[in-house]
């Protein structure tokens, strides 16, 4: 049994999710290889080779892989696929962009957002915005999956000495061309890795309030800032901090939902958090059903007060 994990990286570091996907890959008790593709993968492949749980690092370089396009990434995975019975990646926008393309060309299904892996290729995954879970069995010759990483423990990062195998990169597909990119840089921890996430809703009332009320506490706690879709749509917060079904899925130690109603689509993105605190002035708000600690209060009083007490 041979298993391929597709790594996300920034040419210097592997994404945190990679270590969790490797744990998921161990469910099959087979040999796990790690695929690292990009413009310059020498450094990151070397780091990856230290991971104890993998057999080899498969490395593919190409100038045209700098901004990995779906068509090129899919081609590479397709090319490697006949060596593997299982291919998996994190359930992120990166892999969701090209893995369905791979599945179609290989004539197999892609099973996304896998929460649980059982014997005989039986999986559990959320459907209907996570309202219910489906248990499914796949009889495809290649199991192609994306993993809901917050439910898997990271594997050990070192202790290994995997072989690095460089493979020839197929030529550029040239179906699309990359023009530009805009990434909003922040000094705060990334939403996905943060130990504490504080999310605000539409109730903050303005972009100015969103920042003025939440930022001091967020920064005091070294937390990441999140938002509901309603807050994003109203222009109070940028889209990339949206938590939920259409946004980012987070699972911090502590999640604080501030003036958030608790719609299905928002809950989808935060319900694996270890401890959830909800602050809402409506005692019947749905969010309280998902909170370990609920405080019925006006957020404009409660947030500054929390900040003040913490500082003391």
């Amino acid at each position, binding site marked *: 049994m041979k298993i391929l994990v597709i790594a996300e990286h920034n040419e210097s570091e592997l994404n945190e999710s990679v270590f969790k996907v490797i744990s998921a890959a161990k469910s099959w008790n087979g040999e796990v290889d790690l695929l690292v593709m990009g413009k310059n993968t020498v450094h990151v492949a070397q780091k990856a080779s230290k991971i104890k749980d993998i057999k080899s690092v498969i490395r593919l370089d190409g100038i045209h892989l700098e901004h990995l396009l779906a068509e090129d990434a899919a081609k590479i995975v397709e090319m490697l696929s006949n060596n593997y019975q299982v291919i998996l990646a994190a359930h992120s926008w990166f892999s969701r962009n090209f893995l369905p393309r791979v599945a179609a060309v290989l004539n197999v299904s*892609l099973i996304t957002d896998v929460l649980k892996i059982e014997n005989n290729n039986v999986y559990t995954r959320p459907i209907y915005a996570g309202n219910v879970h489906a248990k*499914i069995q796949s009889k495809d010759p290649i199991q192609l999956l994306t993993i809901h990483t917050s439910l898997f423990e990271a594997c050990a990062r070192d202790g290994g000495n995997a072989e690095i195998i460089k493979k020839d990169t197929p030529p550029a597909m040239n179906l699309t061309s990359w023009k530009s990119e805009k990434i909003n840089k922040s000094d705060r921890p990334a939403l996905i890795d943060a130990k504490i996430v504080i999310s605000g809703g539409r109730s903050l009332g303005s972009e100015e309030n969103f920042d003025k009320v939440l930022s001091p506490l967020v920064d005091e706690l070294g937390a990441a800032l999140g938002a509901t879709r309603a807050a994003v749509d109203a222009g109070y917060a940028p889209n990339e901090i949206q938590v939920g079904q259409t946004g980012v899925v987070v699972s911090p130690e502590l999640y604080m939902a501030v003036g958030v109603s608790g719609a299905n689509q928002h809950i989808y993105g935060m319900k694996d958090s270890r401890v959830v605190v909800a602050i809402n002035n409506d005692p019947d708000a749905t969010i309280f059903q998902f909170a370990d600690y609920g405080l019925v209060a006006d957020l404009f009083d409660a947030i500054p007060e929390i900040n003040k007490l913490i500082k003391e």
Partner: protein
Amino acid sequence: MKILVAIKRVQDYNVKVRPKSDGSDVDIDGIKMGINPFDENALEEALRLREQELATEITVVSIGDSKNEDVLRHGLAMGANRAILIESEESLQPLGVAKVLKGLVEKEKPDLILLGKLALDSDAGQTGQMLAGLLNYPQGTFVSKIEIDNNKLIVTREIDGGTNILEMDMPAVLTADLRLNEPRFVKLPNLMMARKKTIEKIKASALASDTSTKLELLEVLVPPSRKAGIKVSSVKELLEKLKDNEGIQL
């Protein structure tokens, strides 16, 4: 330029669904159904391209049984020129849908195929990419802006932490993010008019020979719920509980 928009009939996004009592499937009896929100964005964008005189004909297509006629009529009422129902008795998985759509694309030869990035029922988010793969077309996923310049598509995509811009030739497949636009409100007279329009019908088997999958649904389960929480009466109590019960030092 011809645009094909694939639309799916799904549950209303506010509804909380339950498994059937025997766990064999999801119980959607009596639930309010309508057009998948992301697909509505896709259709809205097609209409705007026609309003800019960049597109000439917009066809909406849905796969399933006669119940799907309501979303197709919704599409016609929004302004689509034609509607096609691809009749299929079995409920198809994304790969099957992509294969059927490929058959339709080969027949209709649209310049642009627009789909939603995700369906609210299956949460799979695959069909567009699969279709692009089967056709070997360029793809743009999670698209929040579409421009056409000199017959080239320039699309802005939502990616981790921001956006990127891709350029591609047509024919191409794009999947819509909710941020792409604000779909128009359908007026009652338009709905009445759409009722009278004909819906073309094609059998799924005429478009793709094998739409089966090797996936079997074993059971639909209620997800484990979070343990019941408590209400605290003050900020002070909240901080104490976080520290004492949870070991979180703030």
